[in-house]
């Protein structure tokens, strides 16, 4: 049975260089309870939890467990006391099997030199999984599994080690809506067994759904704690941001003008990779002054669609027309010159060069065009001016533009990526979940900026997973399923239910009638 724990964090402070990440924070965590932890990007949520997990050292403060002072100076200490943390970047080795990942450092001391009893290990894990009602392929390599499954490996890892408190740092960021539901079910089941959770997220809806209690951090300070049924999203936003934000999901969409020529037209685009059809006869038209939303669960062809538009992938058949010209065979840089801007799905893999400074990253893609380049020579003044502008307008938190981009916090790097795409009004903007990992206020800000592109006459393709966002800013929404467009809805027809069904594979007509 799970041991009951009551953890008190008392007056915890922590600085990184000049940055005061935590300033005398007090917080109580209990097993058998789900504590939501909210706060803007950089508020100190991860830092606080890393201190509890023994990964970071606190400058000041004390941790008490069941009233007694506890020394936690390494993850080893934390694990032995029943605390486990699942980081946003999973701590799994992709080339190892699920079973190996589960059992790293599970057996200690002299026993660890005895032959492994793999059969017994499998039995233990299978019993655990049975009691939780799900199944993991234990012989599969981690790298071959979707993120949702990897997360379960992490949670089983915690459970296997007898954790009473499991910390989940932004566990839903990379999950599909279905996976989020499954995670919540698992959390509820484990809660019934007496396990407590600290649940970090930026999505208020999720906190309202799953948490029993919620604590809010702002700029390293605890601003408040509430029981969940004593609060509401508006109040929580106010606590996080420090001011009221009315109508989080309302935007001013200027009525668009008469339909002119489309900015982008995809005609029967087919894309196959290694004989597998990834895009099936996609036809889309996007007009100036319009946001075309693309809904769908990740992995249904959205990445391929984005890469076909940027020119990174070539369609197997079909045509791409941009402002009346066929660009099917036009190379990437030429398309950028035409005014196609992109916010990539994976900012670190595709969007940025993490080892280069901010100023270089702020012109990637435009680096061969004036005014940033004259022939082969880069113009440093223009580059700096642009970087400074992006940092100012998009409030990228950084001491200087010569800081290495990889050292920015995730949210701030994302703001840089958005700023780069929007610095010059694009003719066509393709954005793939540009608000991933951003806090409430920043999400609102980024969405406003994208709506601004639309209101200024630009065309936008917005690929998203969050239906609230899609519905709030799109003029039309197309739903993708297994590489196919299941249908298109006009703004006045938007309904979460219908879109949800289409995301699960129903065509528009079927989804409407059921």
């Amino acid at each position, binding site marked *: 049975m799970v041991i009951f724990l009551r953890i008190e964090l008392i007056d915890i402070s922590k600085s990184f260089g000049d940055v005061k990440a935590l300033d005398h924070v007090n917080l109580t965590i209990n097993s058998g309870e789900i504590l939501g932890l909210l706060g803007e990007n950089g508020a100190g949520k991860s830092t606080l939890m890393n201190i509890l997990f023994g990964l970071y050292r606190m400058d000041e403060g004390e941790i008490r467990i069941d009233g007694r002072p506890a020394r936690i100076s390494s993850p080893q200490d934390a694990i032995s006391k029943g605390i486990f943390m699942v980081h946003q970047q999973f701590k799994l080795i992709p080339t*190892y099997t699920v079973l190996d990942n589960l059992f790293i450092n599970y057996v200690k001391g002299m026993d660890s030199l005895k032959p492994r009893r793999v059969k017994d290990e499998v039995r233990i894990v299978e019993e655990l999984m049975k009691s939780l009602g799900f199944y993991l392929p234990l012989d599969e390599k981690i790298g071959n599994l979707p993120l949702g499954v990897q997360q379960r490996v992490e949670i089983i890892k915690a459970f296997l080690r007898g954790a009473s408190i499991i910390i989940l740092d932004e566990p839903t960021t990379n999950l599909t809506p279905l996976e989020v539901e499954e995670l919540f079910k698992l959390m509820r089941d484990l809660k019934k067994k007496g396990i407590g959770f600290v649940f970090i997220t930026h999505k208020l809806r999720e906190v309202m759904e799953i948490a029993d209690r919620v604590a809010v951090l702002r700029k390293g300070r605890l601003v408040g704690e509430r029981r969940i049924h004593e609060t509401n999203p508006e109040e929580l936003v106010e606590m996080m941001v420090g001011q009221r934000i009315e109508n989080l999901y309302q935007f001013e969409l200027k009525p668009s003008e008469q339909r002119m020529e489309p900015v982008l037209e995809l005609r029967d685009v087919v894309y196959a990779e290694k004989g597998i059809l990834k895009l099936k006869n996609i036809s889309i038209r996007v007009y100036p002054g319009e946001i075309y939303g693309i809904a769908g669960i990740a992995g249904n062809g959205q990445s391929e669609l984005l890469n076909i538009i940027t020119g990174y992938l070539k369609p197997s058949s079909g045509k791409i027309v941009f402002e009346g010209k066929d660009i099917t065979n036009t190379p990437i840089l030429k398309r950028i010159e035409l005014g196609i801007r992109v916010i990539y799905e994976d900012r670190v893999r595709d969007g940025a060069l993490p080892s280069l400074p901010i100023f270089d990253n702020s012109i990637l893609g435009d680096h061969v065009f004036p005014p940033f380049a004259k022939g082969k020579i880069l113009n440093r003044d223009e580059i700096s001016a642009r970087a400074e502008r992006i940092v100012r307008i998009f409030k990228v938190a950084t001491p200087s533009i010569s800081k290495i981009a*990889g050292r920015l916090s995730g949210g701030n790097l994302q703001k840089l990526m958005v700023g780069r795409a929007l610095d010059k009004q694009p003719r066509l903007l393709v954005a793939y979940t540009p608000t991933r990992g951003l806090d409430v206020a920043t999400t609102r800000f980024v969405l406003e900026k994208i709506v601004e592109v639309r209101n200024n006459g630009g065309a936008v393709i917005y690929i998203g997973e969050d239906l609230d966002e899609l519905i709030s800013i799109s003029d039309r929404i197309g739903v993708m399923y297994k590489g196919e467009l299941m249908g298109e809805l006009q703004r006045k027809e938007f309904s979460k239910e219908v879109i949800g069904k289409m995301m699960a594979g129903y065509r528009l007509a079927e989804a409407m009638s059921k």
Partner: protein
Amino acid sequence: MASAIESLLFYLMVAFVPYALASYGIMISGRVGLFNVSGEGVMLLTASAAFLTTYKTSSYMLGFMVGVGLGALLGAIFTFVSDKLKINQFIVGLTLFIFATGLGGFLYKVIVGVVLVPPRVQVLSPIKIPVLSDIPIIGPMLFSQNILVYITIILGLLFHYILFKTHFGLKLRAVGDSPRVADVLGVNVGLMRYTFGIIGSALMGLAGAYLPLCFTGTFTETIVSGRGWIAIAITLFGRWNPVPIIFGSLVFSGVEVLVYWLQAQRVAVPYQFLLMLPFIVTLLILIYTSRRLEMPLSIGKHYDREAIEE
């Protein structure tokens, strides 16, 4: 003829030991994330020190202990400088190589000086295993060898068992593949790195000591003749796994014995070309394996708990 083959096979195993031991050393350090390229130098220093010790004291035990001890010390320095002071592992390894090579030659010159007839020690005598050593051909090859041959084979199998059949091995590999994952699961990454950084280099020291004490009976400045570098190739070629390393080492000792045999046969090939042979084999093997090179995932990287992940 039979006795000629017997003797070639016997020497195949004698020459096998230094390759295998040095490769184990590189492999086991690499498995905790340390790429130690100083082997060539470590071997020269320990060959020199072990030879001088045994020459002066007539104790083989003492000679081996000095070799292993010096190897361990250099391993401790390597781990400290690269892990604690965060200096690039290749730079540290190359620096130690140069330092140890110089020191090895220097020690010999100081203690022995320049002499017409270099001093010699008797090479360690074989231990015959009763009955088995009488089997023709494989008897002398496998069961009538000096003790280090037996130890080397057993060590390889032991490494294989520990790395792939035990929880300790899983933990050890995890440190080299992802120190962060290991750390988060409560592994003492620093301790593991020191332990196996030291053990790895101690094995190179043992390989160095072996050369004069079991192989040549004398010390010259060319005694290591590239084995420390070739061991790196063997490790890469064996993908950091003990059993393939045993086979890789046999390939190179085979080439070595072949060169020796060709020389003895007075074939009309220039001597210098024969000496190039091991390096040509290295080159070919590396060209072949480099296409599917496998390394411990975090080898060569520092680990800092509080650094932001990349």
